[in-house]
């Protein structure tokens, strides 16, 4: 046997390292479609679960706050709750699914030389299809509450777009951490529960004591809910500082998530 060199050759500037030469848009679409189809493929109710989940939750909250705690003076309580639930559901489901996506697609990561960022992004976007379905439900509730379309609806794609970018950033960050620390998943499930209470889903922002308001405004999910209610129920544009903060925090989280992913992906192969 030749003598094994104990001093490896120092890494030179890498010339053309092997790359994947496929079509990213086609692959992204195939992965999104896969995640979406697989989710409800073997269920007799299929994709209807996407509508049933928020409906059940809304029903419970509506019953509680109109029949048990009758101090909620809100005639449009159903629409009010859905304005909070729809973005929150997307946020929490996309965050958990995105986080576990790398570990769940380990065979793919280890065997196919494709840019790994695409896996958590596809996971989030496939939950985005559920967001679209639930948004339709939200619109129905808004119309039933007697509210119509107003020109501020033009802000809705911006607000929900910010949310998708925000969750993509979180998914990139947490999925790469989850490769090394597999507890991430449970930590995030617990955090989601905390957030459910810390986001004004079934109560209005106005009952939050003044000293906590600053804290609430730092939470992008809360900001999303507030902006959505302003547009859909109050018929007013969301305050400009809120819209700016939303864009800034989403971009920041996305950049941070991307950087974390880049820094950690070097050893994915060894840990998956």
């Amino acid at each position, binding site marked *: *046997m*030749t003598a*094994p*060199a104990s001093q*490896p*050759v*120092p*890494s*030179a500037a*890498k*010339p*053309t*390292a*092997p*790359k*994947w*030469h*496929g*079509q990213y848009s*086609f*692959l992204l*679409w*195939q*992965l999104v*479609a*896969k995640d979406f*189809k*697989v989710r409800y*493929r*073997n269920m007799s109710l299929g994709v209807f679960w996407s509508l049933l989940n928020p409906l059940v939750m809304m029903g419970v909250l509506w019953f509680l706050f109109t029949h048990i705690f009758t101090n909620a003076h809100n005639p449009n309580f159903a629409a009010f709750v859905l304005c909070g639930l729809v973005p929150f559901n997307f946020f929490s489901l996309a965050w958990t699914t995105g986080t576990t996506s790398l570990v769940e697609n380990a*065979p*793919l990561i*280890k*065997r*196919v*030389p*494709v840019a790994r960022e695409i896996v958590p992004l596809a996971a989030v976007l496939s939950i985005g299809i559920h967001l679209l379905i639930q948004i339709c439900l939200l619109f129905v509730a808004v119309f039933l509450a007697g509210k119509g379309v107003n020109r501020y609806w033009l802000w809705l794609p911006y607000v929900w777009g910010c949310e998708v970018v925000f969750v993509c950033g979180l998914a990139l960050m947490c999925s790469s951490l989850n490769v090394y620390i*597999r507890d991430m998943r449970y930590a995030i499930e617990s955090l989601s529960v905390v957030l459910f209470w810390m986001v004004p889903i079934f109560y209005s922002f106005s009952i939050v004591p003044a000293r906590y308001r600053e804290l609430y405004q730092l939470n992008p999910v809360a900001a999303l809910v507030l902006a959505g209610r302003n547009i859909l129920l109050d018929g007013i544009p969301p305050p400009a500082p809120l819209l700016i903060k939303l864009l800034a925090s989403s971009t920041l989280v996305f950049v941070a998530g991307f950087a974390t992913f880049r820094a950690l992906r*070097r*050893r994915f*192969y*060894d*840990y998956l």
Partner: protein
Amino acid sequence: MNPAVELHGISKYFYRHTGRALLRKHVEGLFRHGRKERFYALKDVSFRVEPGEGVALIGTNGAGKSTLLSVIAGLAEPDAGWVTASGRIGALLQLGAGFHTDLTGVENVWLNAALLGLSHRRTAEVFESIVDFAGIEDFIDEPLRTYSSGMVMRLAFSVAVHMDPDIFIIDEVLAVGDHAFQVKCRAKIQEFKRAGKTLIAVSHAAAGVADVCERAIWLEHGSVVRDGALAEVVAAYEGRPAAP
């Protein structure tokens, strides 16, 4: 001419007991930094493969063959050294790596084609040919979990041979399906070789690659033991002293 693949001083190590660890282990690791036991999967491997060459990697289990293929395919990053490749790499390291058992054959073909780097248009063009080559038309609309393992392999191999790479990297997947299908696979790979493409294949059973490779590299404990003409290296490998 540029080499198809060139490796220069490639080393790759793993830490023992990596993977999932309790918090206690993480904390202990902080205090014992730098004392983790390293295990070299590849140690200072250098060679170049010219375009059109067929190279067989041989060696015992754990010799580093699969890790080496992963490094060439750009899946695992080496800890030292560099690797270059000129041309499209088609890595067939595990058949059906992207397959999902709940999706139908058709859906899996599309997904796998996208993963292997085919464009949307190209997939549409070769779709018929993929299904034809696999020879499982009757089952193509059924979910994959109803397939026998041989059928899954046939479908996966069929998608893979349609990606038409310049450099084909194969990890012990030549022995798929029944005899008739194996003959078909071999014919496809020979056709591929004749078209002047490069082939790097792993094989335990050295005879299995004799007709498509003319050169062999024998790896042991992550290092190249011998690199030369297939017959000569295989003879040396088979006549090796029994492992202790």
